């Protein structure tokens, strides 16, 4: 099974290198293990995340692309849809039938025709527009709703930290 996944990931990697998308960088951690990738996601402009470069790992299942990868931030980040351990919870990363946010827009569901690029773009737009109803991080959701100022301050501080400031 995994051979198929590796082959697909290779062509996705090639595509990412050849057609670079602004603000997202991703690639396998090592040539020996194509099932684990590292990635960087730029904080979207005009949000408190702006200026940050958020690092994360992507872990691919053996039956990729039938099932989606998991994405976990490896830097400090405060966001309603990111669990305290860094794991991102958005519908594109959930296997079919296990969608926590049924009301999310259709284009964000996982299917074998989705890709690393789409996942990273979805994460980027998640940073810009948190969904405070799904609440992977309850405290962050609450702060986002009730004390936006404090939320933004913390987010900015973490964003600066990602680039060593």
């Amino acid at each position, binding site marked *: *099974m995994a*051979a*198929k996944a590796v*082959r*697909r990931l290779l*062509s*996705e990697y*090639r*595509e990412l290198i050849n057609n670079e998308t602004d603000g997202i960088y991703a690639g396998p951690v090592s040539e020996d293990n194509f099932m684990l990738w590292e990635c960087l996601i730029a904080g979207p402009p005009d949000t408190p995340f702006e200026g940050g470069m958020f690092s994360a790992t992507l872990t691919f299942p053996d*039956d990729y*692309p*039938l*099932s989606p990868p998991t994405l976990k931030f490896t830097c400090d980040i405060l966001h309603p849809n990111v669990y305290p351990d860094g794991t991102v919870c958005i519908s594109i990363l959930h*296997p*079919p*039938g296990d969608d926590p946010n049924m009301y999310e827009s*259709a*284009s964000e*569901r*996982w*299917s*074998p*025709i989705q*890709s690393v690029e789409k996942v990273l773009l979805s994460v980027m737009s998640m940073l810009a527009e948190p969904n405070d109803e799904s609440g992977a991080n309850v405290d962050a959701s609450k702060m986002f709703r009730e004390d936006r100022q404090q939320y933004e301050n913390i987010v900015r501080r973490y964003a600066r930290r990602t680039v060593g400031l």
Partner: protein
Amino acid sequence: MAEEASSSSAAQEKADMKTAQELADLEKLSAQWEPESKGPLVGELQSSKILEAEYAGADPVYVRKTAALSPKYSNYRTIKGDGNCGWRALAFGFFELLLRTGDPKVIEKQREYLKSQNALLDQVGMSDYLYEDFVEETINLLKVIGESPAIDNPYDDKFLVEAFNKDDTSNAIITHLKLLTSAFMHINPDSYLPFLVEHPTIDDYRSAQIEPYGVQIDHLGVKALIDAIFIPAGLSVEISYLDRSDSDEVNIHKFEDESGTVKNTEDQAQKTLRMLYRPGHYDLIYKNGDLAPQNLPARLVAPGSGDVRVSMILSQEYTQNPFSSPMSTSHILGIPGISNEICGQFPYPARSYGNHDGTLSIMQESSAQADIEIGPPLLTKTFKNSHYNTIHFQNDHFQPEMWEPDQMAIEKPRISKRTVWKKFRF
């Protein structure tokens, strides 16, 4: 004392928390639990009597319907209930129908057509580097069945069953068909939009119900897939609904080309995929004629020409066939329903019993065990005189030319249908 009490209550609390944690864990596990679906992705051909046996103790509606089913549909093929059964049944059936044409040109034409459909995928914005792996598997399998040795025995499903039981191949082909269906719906929204229930737009429906792997196909998806793949290939699909609705037989719905062109019905019968739908699950079923070799005169395989006659003639050829299975038929003749399997399955020499290792070995084993355990008492009178007895003239598969009066007196192990079938792994 008080300290002790508080520490013990703390310990108690801790224990409670642990239990709560355990409960939460268990709850999580139970939420994630899925019944393990057994068996191959695509099963071998079996006698449809199995269905009758399976429902023997069920609701009378099912008993009635399955009993009415097996004389008409001789064979049955299971598809694994892993959430993809409808897609897999249709995908397998598509290849099987193409192979059965026995015509390399037809298959080649389909191969070219499906390759050309990449343009459709491009048109709806799918990237070639994301779909090419899936398309490749479909194209490769069409190449395999369009060439020797597969094409030489169009009624031998060996290559297809093998290919469809490889996860990679099977799932890639399903995915390819899903993408084609999805793209087809996107460019023909008007045909499907009126039927959407939960989804506001066709695009929403496509991305939620069609494209993801493991999402059950629904009626609209079946229709779209047939419109996108089967109709252009001149194939049609018939679904028999086995449910508790009030009728004596399964309800049949036929999906075919509605463009109004007149069809040769006999030809059409050969190009119809038959699915059996039970709420939540699809399998494949086959009429006798579906599995008959092409070199038989059409009148013998045409549907409705009389099951008894068809099976008689086929069986006759079976007995004369030099390649016939070495297995002793008398060994299984005593078991109701088994002789039907021979008739249904035999039609092509290469499809001899040996292809069904699983089924066969289980059957032999269980009857052999029965010999030892039960001993060979006489058949009961009730059974002997009923139409279940294959040497009774009212049995569908009674074969006068093979009948010998002595047979009626032969001692046979008394094995009820239930004892035999319950040993099957469904």
